[in-house]
């Protein structure tokens, strides 16, 4: 293999090993680690207790992840379309939103939405509707769970807007011209021509962001939302066993993220095969 332009780089890097060409030994090692940890959960009273407590948090983590991601997809798609708008104002507003939100750490966004934006919005609403005799809204009607989902939605909508925009841009202009020539209107062009092609470009980064959302959902624990991480924090505070508790926390997250990643790879491969036909 050695020849001009094919010298191994640092760490013996060559172009001879595209990802996916090796046997997935890492997965075997990971599975072995997982089996060991699940065995601990089954055999050790401490691990079993921790798992029983943390299991209640899995639903909250899933709820936060799925809901916030779905909402962020909708908002992100809207922003991507707005960034392609014919109107300068709309384009610039979308840009402004994406740049601001992408530039702020999610944890800051969370605290901001929970303790600055929500009370301000409630106050503004009451000020607006007060003269009409509507019952005043109370801040407590928005639980910390709802605020956490709103904050994650806002944060991820900016990332996803960029993913969707890249997908939309990747569709060849000739395709759109052809659709126009066939007399399709704007919505039909988007629905039948642009979106199906953009989707294939979008899916891998979208999947990555979904897996990232599973992990970032743990940030809601700073508000005390009882997800896996918060229950882990609370469990360790009561049983004084940090090592065992966070082993179980990591085990649950890894089980979710690896399963998702593998599933998404399958889906991508199937779509690729379909696209080649």
């Amino acid at each position, binding site marked *: 293999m050695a020849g001009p332009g094919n010298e191994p780089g640092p760490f013996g890097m060559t172009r001879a090993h595209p990802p996916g060409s090796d046997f997935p030994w890492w997965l075997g090692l990971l599975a072995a680690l997982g089996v060991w940890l699940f065995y601990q959960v089954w055999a050790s009273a401490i691990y079993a*207790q921790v798992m*029983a*407590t943390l299991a*209640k948090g899995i639903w909250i983590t899933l709820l936060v992840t799925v809901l916030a991601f779905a909402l962020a997809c909708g908002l992100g798609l809207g922003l991507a379309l707005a960034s392609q708008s014919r109107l300068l104002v709309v384009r610039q507003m979308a840009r402004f939103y994406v740049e601001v939100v992408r530039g702020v750490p999610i944890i800051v966004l969370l*605290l901001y939405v*929970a*303790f600055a934006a929500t*009370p301000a919005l409630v106050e503004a609403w009451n000020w607006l509707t007060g003269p009409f005799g509507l*019952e005043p809204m*109370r*801040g*407590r009607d928005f*639980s*910390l769970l709802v605020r956490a989902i709103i904050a994650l939605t806002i944060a991820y909508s900016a990332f996803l807007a960029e993913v969707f925009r890249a997908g939309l841009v990747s569709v060849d202009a000739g395709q759109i011209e052809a659709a126009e020539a066939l007399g399709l209107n704007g919505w039909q062009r988007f629905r039948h021509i642009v979106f199906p092609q953009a989707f294939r470009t979008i899916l891998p980064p979208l999947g990555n962001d979904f897996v990232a959302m599973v992990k970032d959902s743990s940030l809601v*624990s*700073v*508000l*005390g*939302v*009882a997800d896996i991480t*918060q*229950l882990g*924090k*609370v*469990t*360790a*505070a*009561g*049983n*004084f*066993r*940090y090592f065992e508790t966070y082993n179980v926390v990591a085990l649950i997250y890894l089980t979710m993220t690896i399963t998702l990643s593998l599933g998404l790879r399958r889906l991508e491969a199937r779509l690729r095969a379909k696209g080649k036909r």
Partner: protein
Amino acid sequence: MKLTAALAGLTFALSATLATAEGLPDLAGREVVVVTENAYPPLQFLDASGAAVGWEYDAVAEIAKRLNLVVSYQNSSWDAMIPAVSGGQYDMGMTGITIRDDRKEQVDFSDPYMRSEMVMLVRGDESRFSDAASFAANADLLMAAQPGTTPFYVGVYEVLDGNEANPRIKMFETFGAGVEALKAGDVDLVLTDGTAGAGYVAASNGGLKIVGDKLGAEDFGFIFPKGSDLVAPINAAIAALKADGTIEALNQKWFLDYKMGQ
């Protein structure tokens, strides 16, 4: 909705003139939302079965019984708690909160229901210091603390030199992280209240021990949104619990009889 609210208000007005046998007001089944984190054993924590239990749960249940309150619980992190109660999101907060003047700008406090003293938690093989004075004297020694908590202030003002920016205090976001840093040798001292300290020692297999005398005395109170009308009745109930030995019984149950970390 409006009608029931009006009725509840009427009942409340009527019952305010009534009183229970102990002279405590009857709040007529008023709903009170209490927020806590469940991360401060034995005041509130998750037991081995994952159930939320502790001294404060028992005390609030007793207060609710005597004042005729209907209590429901919500969770928030400690960071979020004072802003959330201050903003009126919850009616009351309980999580071993030290009564401090700077916090009184944000929330109203009940009368104290507990006095907490700190112990010095160190590694099991620690031999370089044995009390606060010998810790302070050796500039190599470091302590861990959560900023803005009672152990932090006791560390600054009673162990070290009163400088809140003293580099010998290493800040950690959670109490547990500080204890892990102690075990790992990153710091040499963690201040904690006696019960939690005993729990950590019991769970450490000799890895941790307690040295020196007790430090600092802090009074804990419940917190309420500013101007809450719950403060007066709850203070009356706390006084009743103190007078009839209920508080003493709870101290016996949770601080002496209950075995943490096992």
